[in-house]
Each structure stands twice: as C-alpha cells, then as structure tokens.
C-alpha cells in the first residue's frame, strides 16, 4: 500500500458495507435475491483473489475448494441432520483441509505446471463427486429442505429461506471476509505475500520461508472459498456437481480479472458486473458462455488490471 492512511481505507470499506446493508430495503425482490447470491459468490472471488492477486499464484482448480465447502455443509445437513452453524464450520474445515493437502503437493510446481496441476486435482474432485453419486446426488445434486435451514439461537430462530434473513446472512459473511482480507493485505503477512509475487527468490534472501508463506495463503484462500460454498449451500438449499466443474474454477478468475486483481473491492465489483451483464443479456441470448469467453479475451488483451486496478493506477493510488 502506498502512503497508507488506515482511517480512510477502513472508512471506504465500511461505507461499502453500509451501502449494501441499505440496499436490502430498497431493492425489488428479484434484485434482492440476486444481490444475496452475488455477495455469497463475491466471497469466493475474494478467496481466489487472495492467492491470485496478492501471491500471484494462478490456480485453475478453485472450484474444488468452493465445492468442498458446498458439500461439506450440504452433506452434513442432508445425511447427518446437522444444524446450520455446525454444517457451516464443517464446510470451511473441509475446504481448509483440502487446501492444505493440495497446497503441499501443488506448491512443488510453479507457473504453468501449477495451473495444470490444480486443474487436474479439481477434475479428480469433480469426478469423485460423480463417482459417489449415491451420497452426493451426482449431477442431479441434492435439495436441502427448508426445515433444515433454520438457525435457532436461544429463543429466536432465523429461517435462511426468508429473503431478508438470507440477504443479511450473505452480507454478514461478505463483510467479515472483506474486512479480514483488508486486514491481511495491510498486515506484515500481506506485505510478504506481495513480495513473493514480485520476486520470490529475493524474498527468500530476506529470510522468509516462502513455501510456508505460500502454503498459509493457499489454506486461507481455500478456507474462504469453502466458506462461500458452505454459505451457498445453506442459503440457497442446493448442492450439485456443476459447482465443482472446470467452469467454476474459471469464473472466480474472470470476476477477479474484471474487478481488478490485488484490490480488496475488485472481487465484489467483478462479480456484480459479470452477474448483471449475463442477467441483462440473457433476455435476448442464451449464449452465456460466449460472453464469458469474449470477456476473458478482451480483459487479458486490453484491460489486464481490471476495473478497480485501472482506477487505482490513474486516480486513487491509496486503494488497497
């Protein structure tokens, strides 16, 4: 961060959260639902950004961490009858554990090999979901009933199928992860991560165990993506193998590239933008993938820093 002024930075992030809070009361039903979905998925993008944006590790397999959370939460509710909070924790734990194992293996490689290895591990994970269709529901997926999606705290109970509860839960998760990301990025650890991205060899010669730092980042990233997946399963009541497919490894990359890699708010902007672009265009074309494809190529060619990255470069140098 350049000339960091923590007060200004935190004020900006808090106002974004406040704006999202206020939107709940103004948005029409349809858009309220869409925003809840976008916020849950923006968490996925933030987790991806931590690794891709700040450490410079381009993974093509993050769908496995998202779906580890999705299935970790969904299956414990569906088969074991766990409550919502326990299931959420189970989902995050699954993602973190998976990320630890994958990180230990994949971090032995770098560059293109890292991209292919992560893609292959994700493919294995996807195929395993199909193979164990008896438990996972395979490509049909499983629907989690409304009755299992109620949180009872003390006397009060919150029904996650209620639009406002759902919106506020998504917002709560989003806000926590946003502030955690911000804190990490501004911390000493965040500085080391950026140094690894810029020049790993040099960072080693400053006394840093770069492998251990990268592994920590992979686990943190995996856990955040799993939190997104777990929230998605519990808030929207569906788990399915399509969330583990290659496409869901590409989407966070697209969102982050679009919003701006290595910016804290970029993932939200990218997810929001892409969701509304596809939502609007789906009115007159079903060619969703075409838009994704064209967007990817245009971004890499002409706009590699993304929306917020370009804004930061031109005007707001202090943006984290």
């Amino acid at each position, binding site marked *: 961060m350049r000339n960091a002024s923590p007060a200004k930075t935190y004020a900006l992030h808090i106002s974004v959260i406040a704006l999202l809070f206020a939107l709940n009361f103004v948005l029409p039903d349809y858009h309220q639902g869409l925003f809840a979905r976008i916020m849950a998925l923006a968490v996925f993008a933030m987790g991806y950004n931590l690794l891709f944006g700040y450490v410079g590790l381009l993974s093509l397999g993050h769908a496995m961490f998202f779906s580890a959370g999705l299935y970790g939460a969904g299956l414990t509710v569906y088969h074991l009858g766990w409550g919502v909070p326990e299931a959420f924790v189970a989902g995050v734990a699954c993602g973190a554990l998976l990320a630890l194992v994958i990180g230990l293996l994949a971090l032995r490689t770098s560059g293109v090999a890292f991209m292919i290895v992560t893609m292959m591990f994700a493919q294995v994970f996807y195929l395993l979901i199909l193979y164990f269709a008896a438990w996972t529901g395979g490509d049909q997926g499983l629907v989690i009933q409304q009755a299992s999606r109620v949180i009872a705290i003390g006397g009060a109970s919150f029904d996650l199928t209620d639009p406002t509860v759902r919106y506020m839960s998504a917002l709560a998760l989003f806000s926590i992860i946003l502030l955690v990301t911000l804190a990490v990025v501004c911390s*000493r650890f965040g500085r080391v991560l950026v*140094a690894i991205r810029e020049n790993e060899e040099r960072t080693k*010669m400053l006394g840093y165990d770069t492998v251990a730092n990268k592994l920590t980042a992979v686990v943190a990233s995996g856990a955040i993506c799993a939190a997104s997946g777990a929230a998605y399963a519990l808030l929207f009541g569906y788990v399915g193998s399509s969330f583990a497919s290659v496409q869901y490894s590409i989407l966070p990359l697209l969102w982050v590239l679009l919003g701006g890699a290595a910016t804290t708010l970029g993932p939200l902007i990218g997810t929001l933008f892409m969701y509304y672009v596809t939502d609007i265009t789906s009115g007159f074309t079903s060619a969703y993938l075409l838009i994704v494809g064209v967007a990817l190529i245009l971004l890499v060619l002409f706009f590699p820093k993304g929306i917020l990255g370009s804004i930061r470069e031109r005007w707001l140098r202090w943006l984290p």
Partner: protein
Amino acid sequence: MTPLLTTKGLSRHFGGLRAVDGVDFTLMPGEIRAIIGPNGAGKTTFVSLLSGRIRPSSGMVVFDGADITAMPAYKRVRLGVAYTFQITSVFANLTAFDNVALPVQRTLTDGRTKGQVRSGVMAALERTGLAERAGTLAGQLSYGHQRLLEVAMGLALKPRLLILDEPTQGLADSEIDNFITLVREIARDAAVLLIEHNMPVVMQLAGRITVFNSGKILAEGTPGEIRANAEVQDAYLGAAHG
C-alpha cells in the same frame, strides 16, 4: 578469536565444470574482505554457496561455530548471513518503504530487534540517504539509489555477515565515495564480504583480499601483499589489462 565463517573443501561442480574447487576460507568478525579474480573465477558461485542459494557438491560451511552446510538460504539469513544481489533486484513495484519494511519486520518477528516497523525502516533509509524517497516506487528510483536501497535492505536485516556482490557497479564516482563511507560504517557491526572489480575501491576498503582463479584461492593477504604478488598480476591484472 574464533572465526565468523569458515569453509572446508567447499566445491561445486556444474557438469564437468569445477566452478568452485575445494576452497578453504576463513573470515574473522568485523573484517572487511574483498574477493577479486577474473570473470568466471567462481566468485559469485562461492558467495552463493555461503548464502545458501546454491547447494555445494561437497565440503562444508561453518558459521559462528555451527555447521550450516545443509541449511536453506532463508534460515541462514535469519542467522545473520545477508546477501545483496549482483544485479539489482529490489521490488520494483513496491515503495522504497515497503522494500525496507520486509527485512525490518523479519528481524522484529525473530525477536532480534525490538520496536516498530516504521521507525526501523526510516532509520535504515536515513542511514543510506533515501529517507525522502520512502514513498517512491523502487522501480522509479535512479540506478544509484536502487543500489543504495539494496544496501539499506541488507542493513535492515541486522546481518553479522553482509555479502555484497559487485556493489559499486554502475555507480557514479560521487556515489562511490558515499558508498565507501557506508561500508566502513556497516563494518562496525558486521563483517563485510564483497566481490568487487573496482580496484581503487578494493584497495581503500578491504583489510584483506582473497584472489580467486579457476574456482580456487590463488592468493590471500593485505592489499599491499596482493599488489606485490607476481602470480596475481599474471592471472588477474595481466588478464584484465591484456
């Protein structure tokens, strides 16, 4: 006094090439030692073996009484062996402040120093005369300033041995004078080992000089002895001027 660093039979082969060949080397605490020798004599490979960037084919490295031959580079840095690169490799996209903050926070985490990151960084930047440029991106600094930043980063690691690989390369004459003052100052807290081609700098700075040729130590002694050594003149000065 016990030596700060010793190597015994240190060798590194690349295929058939013996880049470093059975070197026995001793460095005392507080010493300023220059390593000279013709191109390809194995100087950079030798210091890379000391810093741990390259693994030796055989032999051992002892630092402050402990065998560090098998220790990875980052752990050696934590013990106090700092290395600045031959080619400037500051973090171009980070500010000068952040560049120095990385080694400063490292020593804070280790508990080797106490205090705040900010004060530590500013102290190192002031010592190298870069304090005013703390907020500038390192890539936008002049070449001379980048080299100084590199030294500031080395300093901030609180090293007990600072290895400088051709530190004056590309510096203007006025900058070289400042640099000499700086190295003398560093040597009050740490031993300095520098690879250097600029003979006047070597003669002014070094307490002792080690001459490398074909991966071996050809000669070692005070600047006066080295200047008088006929073998050195043949191998090195002859090669450099002929």
